[in-house]
């Protein structure tokens, strides 16, 4: 673990609070901004804070991948398209909450609560103590080895999914032949 025992529980708590707060705030921001550009920027922030949380959970490689792939490639793609499409603002929160908004809020809220409740009920006691992990837990070498041994199938299928997406993207992006 990078943040070793030497850092102590207090520092970890502090980092957790900051990163967690950033995560939640940026999540709310993504959903509520009217300008998609700002929403995308908020998402980048969200991804970053998540990467920090991953680090706290000893998932170094995943954190790195998150920043490089997600925040780096995917979000850039998003920003490209937002720029291409042009400025569009909608005012989702104007005119008071419609029945749809209320229904949506209820649905989302209930999902949130249910997840909490479910996990709490089922696994409440067991979540107190986590396992001890060895030193190479979460390192790229370790992940790599897992990919090529235990989870080879997932690795291969993921590659196929990426291929399909690439083909789809090309098809969608090509200029359609005009009829007539």
């Amino acid at each position, binding site marked *: 673990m990078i*943040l070793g*025992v030497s850092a*102590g*529980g207090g520092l*970890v708590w502090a*980092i*957790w609070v900051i990163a967690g707060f950033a*995560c939640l705030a940026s999540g709310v921001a*993504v*959903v509520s901004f009217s300008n*998609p550009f700002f*929403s995308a920027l908020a*998402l980048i922030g*969200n991804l970053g804070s*998540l990467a920090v*949380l*991953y680090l706290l*959970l000893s*998932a170094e490689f*995943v954190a790195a991948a998150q920043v490089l*792939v*997600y925040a780096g490639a*995917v979000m850039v793609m*998003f920003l490209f*398209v937002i720029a*291409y*499409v042009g400025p*569009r603002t909608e005012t*989702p929160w104007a005119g008071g909450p419609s029945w*749809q908004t209320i*229904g949506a*809020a209820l*649905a*989302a*809220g209930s999902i*949130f609560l249910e*997840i909490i409740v479910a*996990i709490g009920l089922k696994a*409440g006691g067991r*979540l*107190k103590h*986590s*396992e001890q*992990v060895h030193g190479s837990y979460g390192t790229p070498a*370790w*992940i790599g080895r*897992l990919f090529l041994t*235990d*989870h080879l199938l997932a690795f291969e299928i*993921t590659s196929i*999914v*990426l291929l*399909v*997406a*690439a083909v*789809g*993207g090309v098809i*969608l*992006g090509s200029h*359609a032949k005009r009829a007539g």
Partner: protein
Amino acid sequence: MLLGPGIAWYLGIAAFLFGIGALGVLVRRNPLIVLLSLEIMLNGGNLALIAFARHAGNGAGQIFALAVMAVAASEVCVGLGLVVAINRRRLALDVDELSELRG
């Protein structure tokens, strides 16, 4: 030895992210923002996966999280392609307007 908050706290954040992403998908009309909200949901799931992986001390969760990331990337690619195609046809970028598959 896990320092700091227990796994449960991370799971709480993950649940909240999931919920807020769902709200975004349901409420917003701009497909781009819908896609962004979708990303939030996926990330919430990822966080939960990583947390559980750490809790159980095994690597399947992290592998799964990486796979999810790859799939999310692909899905965003295709989704954005759709948005571009819609825009090229000068249709409104509004999920309420794009309702040709009506019964």
